[in-house]
């Protein structure tokens, strides 16, 4: 067992909990940046035995793109919006925290039932990726502000990225680059959507979006 890998994965889960439990948008974005950079470190630590160029590349891409560029972009998106915090979420903060704790327990139970064809670097990777995905879902469902939902989506993507790190040897670059590109485009689109909602309604509640038109 690798103590450093364990510490970093526990850090990832705890950062996820802090993201889910905080109500300030700025804090959420910063924590998301930190978590994404830590995920890059996970990739480096997991393959520390035989480090190859493309692994370092994926890790660096994750750190730069997810850890630096996307948080800055999200900050740009909320710059013109006067709302700085999630005032009345659909699911309260305490309940969100409780649900996330349950999701962690559930993902560990689920992961212990699954059988994987190849050996895995650490038993903690799969449960932590599951729990990040569930926490992202909780954030998307439980919050009203568009930007919180974007962060929920990104949190979910972080979970998927953590899972994809396991496949790095089998399918180098293809999956990761696809995910990173998708994610980047999605963030850009959502940033524009957030700005348009706020221009139209003077806030960024997605509850205002009730009718479709072309």
């Amino acid at each position: 067992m690798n103590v450093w890998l364990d510490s970093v994965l526990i850090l990832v889960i705890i950062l996820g909990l802090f993201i889910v439990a905080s109500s300030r948008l700025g804090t959420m974005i910063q924590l998301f940046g930190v978590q994404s950079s830590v995920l890059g470190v996970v990739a480096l630590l997991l393959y520390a035995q035989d480090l190859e160029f493309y692994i370092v590349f994926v890790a660096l891409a994750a750190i730069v793109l997810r850890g630096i560029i996307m948080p800055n972009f999200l900050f740009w998106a909320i710059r013109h919006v006067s709302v700085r915090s999630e005032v009345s979420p659909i699911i309260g903060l305490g309940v969100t925290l409780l649900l996330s704790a349950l999701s962690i327990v559930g993902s560990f139970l689920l992961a212990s039932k699954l059988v994987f064809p190849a050996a895995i670097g650490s038993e903690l990777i799969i449960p932590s990726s599951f729990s990040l995905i569930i926490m992202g879902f909780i954030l998307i469902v439980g919050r009203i502000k568009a930007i919180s939902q974007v962060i929920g989506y990104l949190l979910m993507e972080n979970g998927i990225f953590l899972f994809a790190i396991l496949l790095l040897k089998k399918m180098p670059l293809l999956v990761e680059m696809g995910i990173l590109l998708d994610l980047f485009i999605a963030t850009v689109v959502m940033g524009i959507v957030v700005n348009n909602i706020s221009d139209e309604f003077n806030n960024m509640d997605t509850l205002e979006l009730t009718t479709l038109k072309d």
Partner: protein
Amino acid sequence: MDMIPLFHLMILIVFPPLLLGVIGKTKAFFAGRQGPSLWQPYFDLYKLMQKSPVYSVTTTWIFRAAPLVSTAAILAAGILLPITSLKPAVQFWGDLVLFIYLFALARFVIVLAALDTGSSFEGMGASREATFGCLSEITMFLNLTILALISRQMSLSGIFIGGLASCWVLVGPVLILVVVSFFLVLLAENARIPIDDPETHLELTMIHEVMVLDHSGVDLAYILYGKAVKLFLFATLLISVIFTFKTHQFFIDIVLFVIEILGLAVVLGVVESTMARLRMNKVVYFLFSAFIFSIIGFIVVLVRLMGAHS
């Protein structure tokens, strides 16, 4: 005859108020004041001992018994917990459960005494204490369970004298979680600043203080002393988890222990000087995060143990 348990008892009885003195001095330093002397808590206790208590006519024997029972329960918990490598007087299989529930007993009698005064104000404090107590107690229990699991010992002496020595290398991350969670519980249980301010009597935010407003004289001295011992025990528990290195040389261990625990008191003073008190409804989140830290640690330990067996 073996003198070590006697020595252990002496430290347990004499040392605790000094911690409060060090915390007070640190806070005074941060405020740019001279501050009271390090021995002020001892003087306060001595002064209170001289005074005769005043009892309201609405109170019953419960009110008079509570300070004695709670202090006795906390001291009884103290003789289960080893101080560095000093063996305590009493140890048996599973004494960690007794350890936690002696604290629960101390809390219970104080809550009863607060209700016994018939003041709605103290009833409010009792209700807060009981609510937050639920969360911190289960966290304590989980943390001690984790320690028992990873050291494969079921008594506090077994865990802290030798049992944990090699665990930092194997399950360091889990122990960090345990330390963080213990620290948060320590702040909450001992009414330190992010949760409760031990120095003010502001009715809207008090938790522990509000329950002992009607106690006076000797009774108040018992309660203050009991709180000091409780802080000392939590601090000892915390540094026993952090510093597992022991020389097993009697005096060197004691000197190291005194340095460590006074250092922890300084850290507490710094935390209290630099942080503002949390709003009452945030306290639940504070304790809840302590609980989540310990539950993540617990799950990781379970996964690791299952992995080791299969």
